[in-house]
């Protein structure tokens, strides 16, 4: 129940007329932002202190003060205090204990001024004696708290020194530091530019202006720096978008750092940093939705090749003919080559690079196929099958033929070779699946293989409903 990090405070009380002193140990528990509990434990070495007076006692938050009246340590029992903090500079405390078999209540209020000085007052109430009024003031010096108070009834001066070794006053609060991405994948740079990747919210807890500095730096990016001033009590949120990146081809991940720091009167009061890695443009995070970023139908090389491939087809050529022509070109001229085994994450080539290399794995060839079909206005989608019990996944392509179900001769064409998907008007159109890894094979074989796989995994085994088969549209 007790906060393990709660500080232990030693209190030395000094009485001017008797020169007696005492120490006590407190345990504190932050129940919530507005309430705190304190338990005061009597000293262990009782024989040292015959009769003394306790002194104002500071809680973890430096806001509660518990006044104790005259008491005998031998009669001490643990005392319980509850502190209420309606405001960060104001608190009210009530304490309950027993002293020489008499129930003892204390009520007090305390105010913190400029986060450095304390003003406090309170009265004690015992069931068979008058109320005793006490007033005091003090100050914070580092982890120490010095306090003087005067008991009006007994004309008693008290000087208290308390120390909380684990207690560190918070001057600025980092309300939120949200990092949306751990890695920056350069293939989706445009996405990062329009969606913030770091969000920092700060709150000034002191009665003085605090300047906040946010910086993003690293060898691969152009350094960005933002500064602003927070007035006392103010909260501000700052969103960071990705700045300009120097190049897109890093052979190994390069790192940059986001750093937030705060200064008050020239002294640093907060510093926090987050390292971020920037991934090469060919490194893909493995999410099918992201593979779409590699499809570049508007790249001039892709446009040129696609239009050249279909230029000889007759006027009424349909999407199946175009898909077949493009597939045949890939099948005859390209090689299937796996990713390098050393690569820790998937490696995907840009389609114009695959055109030059004439090789690639299922993602590379699917990306190229979609890019080429997109370049001549044919809609495609990507299908991913994550085989159960296996770590790897497989990708193939769906091509929108634009044909209605009525166009098919179902007596002679197996409808399971097509996937009938609705368009936005709710009309069914036939899409055909194509397996791009079957380079060197015929289009029909690539179509059949993908259709068989789709029907078996996506429908018969319910893969789409269980989400181990996914379809992602290419736009």
């Amino acid at each position: 129940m007790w906060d393990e990090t709660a500080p232990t405070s030693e209190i030395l009380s000094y009485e001017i007329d008797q020169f007696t002193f005492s120490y006590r140990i407190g345990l504190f528990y932050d129940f919530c932002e507005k309430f705190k509990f304190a338990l005061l434990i009597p000293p262990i070495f009782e024989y040292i202190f015959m009769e003394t007076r306790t002194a104002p006692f500071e809680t973890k938050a430096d806001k509660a003060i518990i006044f104790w009246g005259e008491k005998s340590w031998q009669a001490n029992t643990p005392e319980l205090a509850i502190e209420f903090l309606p405001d960060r500079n104001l608190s009210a405390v009530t304490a309950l204990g027993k002293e020489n078999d008499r129930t003892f209540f204390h009520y007090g209020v305390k105010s913190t001024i400029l986060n450095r000085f304390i003003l406090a007052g309170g009265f004690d109430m015992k069931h068979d004696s008058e109320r005793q009024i006490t007033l005091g003031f003090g100050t914070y010096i580092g982890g120490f708290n010095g306090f003087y108070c005067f008991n009006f009834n007994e004309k008693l001066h008290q000087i208290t020194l308390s120390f909380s070794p684990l207690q560190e006053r918070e001057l600025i609060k980092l309300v939120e530091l949200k990092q949306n991405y751990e890695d920056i994948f350069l293939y989706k740079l445009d996405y990062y530019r329009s969606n913030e990747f770091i969000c920092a919210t700060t709150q000034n807890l002191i009665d003085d202006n605090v300047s906040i500095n946010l910086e993003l730096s690293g060898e691969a990016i152009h350094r960005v720096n933002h500064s602003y001033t927070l007035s006392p009590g103010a909260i501000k949120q700052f969103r960071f978008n990705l700045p300009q990146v120097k190049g897109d081809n890093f052979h190994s991940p390069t790192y940059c750092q986001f750093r937030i720091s705060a200064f008050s009167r020239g002294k640093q009061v907060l510093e926090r940093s987050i390292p971020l890695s920037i991934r090469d443009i060919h490194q893909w995070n493995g999410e099918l939705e992201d593979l779409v970023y590699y499809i570049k139908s508007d790249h001039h090389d892709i446009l040129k090749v696609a239009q050249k491939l279909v230029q000889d087809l007759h006027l009424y050529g349909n999407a199946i003919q175009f898909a077949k022509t493009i597939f045949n070109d890939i099948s005859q001229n390209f090689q299937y080559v796996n990713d390098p085994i050393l690569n820790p994450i998937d490696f995907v080539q840009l389609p114009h690079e695959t055109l030059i290399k004439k090789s690639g794995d299922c993602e590379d060839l699917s990306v190229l196929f979609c890019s080429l079909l997109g370049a001549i206005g044919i809609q495609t989608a990507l299908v991913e099958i994550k085989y159960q019990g296996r770590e790897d996944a497989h990708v193939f392509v769906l091509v929108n033929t634009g044909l209605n179900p009525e166009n098919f001769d179902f007596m002679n064409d197996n409808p399971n070779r097509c996937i009938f998907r609705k368009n936005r008007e709710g009309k069914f159109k036939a899409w055909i699946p194509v397996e791009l890894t079957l380079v060197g094979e015929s289009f029909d074989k690539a179509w059949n293989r993908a259709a068989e796989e789709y029907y078996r995994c996506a429908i018969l085994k319910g893969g789409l409903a269980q989400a181990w088969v996914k379809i992602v549209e290419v736009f």
Partner: protein
Amino acid sequence: MRLIIVFMICSLALANENEFKIIEREGEIFIRHGIENDWRIYQASEMLKENDWIQSGANSSAKIERHDGKIFILPENTIIEGMELKNYTSSELLLILTSIEISNIPPQKGKPIAPSGAYIIHGNRPTDSATIDSVEVNQYLEYEMNGLDALCEQSFWAGVILKIFKLKKFEKMLDHESLEYNLLVAYNKMNLVRRFNEAKERFIKKYPNSEYIEQINGLR
């Protein structure tokens, strides 16, 4: 000893719940495996799987035995797919239905599905070819509808649902009222309560004067 081994192999083969066997036939029965296009004449003792197709011609019929011993009689001029004869639990069936529905979902990102852009490149659009091959489509639909009737009559309710899902793409060419009524009955028999209630609500809204309403209200 040899006989015992043969018996064991046959038992294992029949135990596969994805397999079916034609135990009796009259006339010619055609099959096509998986995603093959071509129909071929069924050879005796050939095992059929859930993704195989079975077709009977005029004056032909067949008795198909499921792994659990249940018999389906394939009447003449009928097409049946293996998966329509399978024995499903409600949750297995729901998984397949949901997968079919997900598969049907139109592209979501706001761009319309353009008819294949090739037409745009050539500055021309194809004529509406809905009537092309309509004879073949009609014949196919007739065979499928015969299959649906047989499934209903012989209480293969999961098959009824799957068949209707398959036929839904021929929106203009089918009597939707009777299809949807059959679907309701099948949902009811398969104990797919939520789907039944939703389909019932849709049906009453769409066909308030239907002769089936009384029968539908009597279903639950």
